[in-house]
């Protein structure tokens, strides 16, 4: 191990951070879809020619417990992640799946048709489609002079 690194000052915090990361990786604390310190649920946004597409993985969520609202250009999602039949804690031999209520707000892109928004929730995967507003024709502004 190099004692001195050229062009780089000694950074004990970064080394510590890297070491902690390595330890956490080895015990496999993080699982797909849930990362400590990140917002839940994780959301991907894609753009096609005609629409924006938001996707989020929401397993174990009943459609009736998922709520989507739009106000002032912000999409707010709330939900509850739980199993149909609750199991007493002492029966678990292994418990990795997260549960509980959550809320997340996302600013929406401009120039979308909010009233045309559609959401599909299938196999624990939420897909929200936001159609783009049609491009307006450039409009000439008449200039008057004295």
């Amino acid at each position, binding site marked *: 191990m190099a004692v001195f690194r050229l062009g780089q000052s000694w950074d004990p915090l970064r080394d510590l951070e890297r070491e902690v990361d390595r330890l956490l*990786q*080895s015990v*496999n604390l*993080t*699982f*797909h*879809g*849930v990362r400590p310190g*990140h*917002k839940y649920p*994780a*959301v*991907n*946004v*894609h*753009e*096609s*020619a005609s629409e*924006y*597409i938001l*996707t989020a*993985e*929401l*397993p*174990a*969520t*009943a459609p009736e417990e998922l709520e989507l609202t739009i106000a002032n250009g912000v999409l707010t999602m709330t939900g509850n992640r739980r*199993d149909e039949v609750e*199991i007493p804690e002492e*029966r*678990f*031999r*292994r*418990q*990795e*799946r*997260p549960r509980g209520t959550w809320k997340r707000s996302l600013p929406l892109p401009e120039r979308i048709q909010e009233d045309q928004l559609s959401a*599909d929730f299938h*196999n*624990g*995967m939420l*897909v929200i489609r936001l159609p783009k507003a049609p491009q307006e024709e450039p409009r000439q502004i008449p200039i008057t002079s004295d």
Partner: protein
Amino acid sequence: MSTDQPDRSQHLVMAHQTDDSTASSTERYVFTPPIDIFETDDGLMLRADLPGVSLESLELQIQDNRLTLFGRVETVLPEDAVPLHREFEVGDFLRSFILSDEVDYDRITARLSRGVLEVELPRAEQPEPRRIQVNAD
């Protein structure tokens, strides 16, 4: 029952090769899905979060004492979609488990609902103790 999981929660593997030689092999993510295992009155229940996996794209198999689940996630995006913001990677789910003798392999049932796979692992009937006659010379 013990879990047999890779030391990393995600790793890149080559997609399953198909017999079709024209099919190009593409790299896909494979994730370890989170699971719960709990005791029921009849045995054990396993639940795994598999968002985006449909009944048709889920494979559940037992070989010897190893239970393996593999769920393929089909894309829901149109072909011309380009990513603007990405917080999670899309990939398939794979995990396997070593079953103990207390499970009756022939009566295992499973169902998929709301992106959650539920596998029922009934307890095997314990055979009655049998008395062994000891004969003297």
